[in-house]
């Protein structure tokens, strides 16, 4: 079912965590709440989960106003950054927990837990304790646990934040595949724009308790609503009031009327792409992004003088 947040405000003492936030999450979607630390994204997730109550506004699950309903009565599944594994229970008992609390019959629990452990590829580890699992395995267990009670909504609070880079990438792809299979309305909170762009179908960018923009990854990248979104969602060159993406700078060895002379300070080879750190006469620094071939054809190296021209630039009207 879809989720609707209507004009929610949440304060902690003097600190305004959420300021009149309204968001619509389509049913069956995988939406990311993206923002820097302290932006309010986790608070928003917890308000949707029912772990925090908003000061104003409403939360609707489908057509149901659940604003004042406690977490246990909302039918949400939640996954936490640090796993929140029940460390005194085995993997099997962890996953079975929600079903046991609902007093489901033993047979049903057996089947469901087995099914889920297979889904998350942890079948052999059912009798182990969380402390004996790796971070990635613990998080998969947490997911299985949340899915066990057939939640209407799946909420993930920076689920991969505590894992190392390689495992993070694996789990992102894995989550995407899982969502394709299971189709539960899913919200993932993250501060990592790459993660949001890779995983989500829709991204809600949040900053200082307010929604900056809602859109697909492509919309956000190509048509950012404001400076914050543009800088947050990808690298950007800011020159005065003008913003230029590094990939929108083209370099050539010959000047033409509109291009600017710059010197190459540093060339960084990242395998598939090359980044060039450039400096203009007046000391302004620029970052350009080129393909391998482009860099090679220019014979790009430190100290080289080239001419830079933006293919595209953005100015935001206030």
């Amino acid at each position, binding site marked *: 079912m879809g989720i609707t947040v209507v004009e929610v405000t949440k304060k902690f003492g003097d600190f305004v965590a959420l300021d009149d936030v309204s968001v619509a999450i389509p049913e069956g979607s995988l939406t990311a709440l993206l923002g820097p630390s302290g932006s309010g994204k986790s608070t928003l997730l917890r308000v949707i989960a*029912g772990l925090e109550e908003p000061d104003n506004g409403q939360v609707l699950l489908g057509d149901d106003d659940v604003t004042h309903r406690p977490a*246990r009565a909302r039918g949400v*599944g939640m996954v936490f950054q640090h796993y929140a594994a029940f*460390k005194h229970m085995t993997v099997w008992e962890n996953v079975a*927990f929600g079903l046991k*609390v609902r007093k489901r019959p033993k047979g049903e629990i057996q089947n469901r837990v087995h099914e889920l452990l297979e889904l998350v590829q942890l079948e052999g580890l059912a009798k182990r*304790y969380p402390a004996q699992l790796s971070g990635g395995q613990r998080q998969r267990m*947490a997911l299985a646990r949340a899915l066990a009670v057939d939640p209407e909504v799946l909420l993930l609070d920076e689920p991969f934040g505590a894992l190392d880079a390689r495992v993070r990438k694996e789990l992102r792809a894995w989550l995407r595949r899982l969502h394709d299979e299971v189709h539960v309305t899913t919200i993932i909170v993250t501060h990592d724009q790459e993660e949001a762009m890779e995983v989500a179908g829709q991204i809600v960018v949040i900053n200082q308790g307010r929604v900056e923009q809602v859109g697909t990854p492509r919309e956000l990248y190509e048509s950012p609503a404001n400076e914050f979104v543009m800088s947050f969602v990808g690298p950007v060159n800011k020159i005065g009031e003008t913003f230029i993406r590094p990939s929108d700078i083209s370099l050539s060895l010959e000047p033409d009327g509109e291009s600017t002379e710059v010197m190459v300070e540093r060339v960084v080879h990242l395998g598939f792409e090359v980044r060039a750190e450039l400096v203009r006469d007046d000391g302004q620094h620029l970052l350009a992004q080129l393909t391998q071939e482009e860099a090679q054809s220019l014979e790009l190296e430190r100290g080289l003088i080239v001419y830079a021209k933006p293919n595209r630039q953005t100015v935001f009207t206030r």
Partner: protein
Amino acid sequence: MATSAAVPVSRPGAVANRAGGALLRGIAIGYLSLIVLVPLAALVWSSRSQGAGSFWEEVTKPEALSALKLTLGVSLIVAAFNALTGTAIAWVLVRDSFPGKGFVNGVIDLPFALPTVVAGLVLLELYGPNSPFGVDLAFQRAGLVLALLFVTLPFVVRAVQPVLLELDREMEEAAESLGAARFAVFRRIVFPNLLPAILSGVALAFARAVGEFGSVVLISGNIPFKTEVSSVYIAGQVESDNPAGAAAVSVVLLLISLGVLLLIGAFRHWRTRHDR
């Protein structure tokens, strides 16, 4: 592979330094032995000096037995009661907030800081013949229990507090999001994680209650077969010039103390089993 060098020498003087460390360690262990081990060894020796038969005789004397039964019984009751009240107090101190909480937290240390004889005298005044409340618990088992409750108060509280503080709140939130009601969260998530700490605190409280002397010697009246605990019995035997009898019962108390320490070690081992 060369096996001659037992101690890897990292630089000149390293061996001398290790020897110095060993010497210091040796002196400290010598200190420990002189202060604790040698006297206790003398105790054990004295208790068997008249032979095993005499030991058994002393321990099974009616008065001694009665004292021991009373001691163990009362200590168990007090320890169990502390399991409940100690956990409740720790919970209130960690999870609740109210003005003066810091003060209350400090007050828990009072039974440790206050000399036992002062506690005994004061309890006697409050609940004995001069009681402003009109009760008279002196010379009764109730008075005994009261004194023991006073001195054992901090143990369970202080054992549970740090564990409760460290407890991952997200575990409780996860349980809640999975549909568990408040009490179910406590029963299935919080309590199992607190249990080893509670038991450690209970064990310490029990040991303290078994050995307690200063606070009970005034309020209980030390009536043999009624309110005389083992520690008082031992002191009495010393005064009656029966050191063998005193030694025999003391060895029993020593064994109980050792048993409790072993138990606490086991609880600690059990508590950390999920972290390994």
